[in-house]
């Protein structure tokens, strides 16, 4: 009797140990690729990240040096275009889902947004290629920004909806009971209370599309020089990395590594900003 009890006890201990080990190893497996990627980028790219990289146009094949300033600026321009379309549509759509509409229509819209979130990003490139590029007979920054914004909209919509739903009903009631209209209550009370969460969603969406390459292949196309008009092809960091990485030249490979390092650092910084913004989130409700 005694022996059997002790035996069971040991077996339980083993099971418990096993479970926590598996969990630990899984956690390690999650972190490993990230550290490996970062390590590789630093080793291969850090040497080429210098002042020239941020200030000079790409050098012709064979010529040493050169940079990616046009691609960095191009990426920022594309993000601005994408944000100009994607942020208002996504935020207002999310507010609509959370505050208006009937339950049935909203669940349909929510489902569609989730499906959109799952669509491979190259599809958006093809869609915009068909809708805009073919019709206007040319690749352009507008087309690239539109493709990116279409990826952003469902992302922002869903995060906005979630944080707006987190705002306690008491605040809506308090505002309405003061004789404030529904619209003003939503803008000045609900969205203001949820603003940190909404901004977080926007930043994460920008970080996500900032690294997108596929949708830009058919739309923004890339450009080795400065873009002088948004209706012309424009360079973007991920596109430039792609072009350089598949090239046969060692110089370009080094530039691609540097570009990737800059891009990943940028995304990393945005995530850090998000962490800082959402710090003490539990205390401030949303």
């Amino acid at each position, binding site marked *: 009797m005694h022996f059997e009890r002790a035996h069971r006890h040991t077996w339980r201990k083993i099971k418990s140990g096993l479970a926590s080990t598996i969990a630990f190893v899984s956690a390690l497996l999650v972190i490993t690729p990230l550290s490996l990627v970062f390590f590789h980028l630093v080793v291969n790219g850090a040497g080429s990240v210098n002042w020239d990289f941020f200030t000079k146009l790409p050098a012709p094949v064979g010529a040493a040096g050169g940079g990616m300033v046009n691609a960095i600026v191009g990426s920022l321009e594309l993000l601005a275009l994408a944000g100009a379309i994607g942020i208002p549509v996504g935020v207002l759509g999310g507010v609509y889902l959370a505050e208006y509409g009937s339950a049935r229509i909203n669940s349909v819209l929510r489902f569609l947004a989730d499906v959109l979130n799952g669509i491979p990003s190259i599809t958006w490139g093809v869609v915009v290629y068909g809708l805009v590029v073919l019709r206007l007979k040319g690749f352009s920054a507008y087309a690239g920004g539109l493709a990116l914004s279409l990826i952003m909209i469902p992302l922002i919509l869903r995060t906005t909806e979630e944080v707006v739903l987190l705002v*306690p009903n*008491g*605040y*809506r*009631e*308090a*505002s*309405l*009971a*003061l*004789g*404030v*209209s*529904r619209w*003003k*209550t939503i803008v*000045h*009370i609900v969205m*203001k*209370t949820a*603003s940190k969460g909404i901004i977080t969603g926007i930043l994460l969406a920008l970080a996500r599309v900032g690294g997108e390459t596929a949708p830009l292949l058919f739309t923004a196309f890339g450009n080795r020089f400065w873009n002088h008009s948004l209706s012309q092809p424009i360079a973007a960091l991920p596109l430039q990395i792609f072009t350089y990485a598949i090239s046969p030249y060692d110089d370009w490979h080094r530039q691609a590594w540097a570009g990737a390092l800059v891009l990943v650092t940028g995304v990393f910084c945005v995530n850090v900003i998000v962490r800082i913004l959402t710090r003490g989130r539990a205390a*401030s*409700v949303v």
Partner: protein
Amino acid sequence: MENLIVTTPERTVMEHVDQPVEPPPADESVPACTFQVKNLSIWYGEKRAIDNVTLDIASNAVTAIIGPSGCGKSTFIRALNRMHELVPKTRVEGTVLLQGEDLYLNDVDPAIVRRRVGMVFQKSNPFPTMSIGENVVVGLRLNGVRDRKFLNERLEKSLRMAALWDEVKDDLHKPGTSLSGGQQQRLCIARALAVEPEVLLMDEPCSALDPIATAKIEELIYELKARYTIVTVTHNMQQAGRISDYTAFFYIGRLIEIGPTTKIFTNPTDRQTEDYITGRFG
């Protein structure tokens, strides 16, 4: 009717400053009524929450609504400023007259009803993104008042009326949520008073507060009734006895009895009222 429809911020702002809300009635034998509720029934979907209630609510007095949980107390006072409409699929029958004007006519904007009939909730809910001062004047600001001097005057006046001025006058820029529970509730009262309503509805305003904070709110209610008609829901019968002039007892959506508080508590007409007040159920 005109009053309800064409109310502008100027009217809310200017008209009711420093004057009693309602002139005394010509006929002194009948107390003036702020609300006249006639055959009011309210449904949430298929469920009837209020069943054919008829009562008058006296001006410049405190009316307490008592009754066991689920008896329709909250629904009833929310119907007095149309807040119950926030729940989808509500349906109303009967009339609610505020100073003789029907709140439920088609062309009445609920926002304007709510400017005239303010509300304080069970859980204090100062806006977390705003300072103490911003919380008090937010109703005026969002209704279009821009005049800084006026806002500052109203800020101080409302906080004084809510007996909170002395405690927060040096901390007006601090977040509203930094105050204690009782102070937050008084801040919410100040916020409701700042838009100069005629009536103050209170939905169990003390149920989340400790006894000392409760005593302060009760004292405040007593002082406020000189200027406002107050309707309060309470679970606490001793509180109803302390603060109210009239008490209405609700049970399963029906009004069982309404009368002067002293009478309801000492000599109720209805058997159910007596059973509830003596604690036989509830």
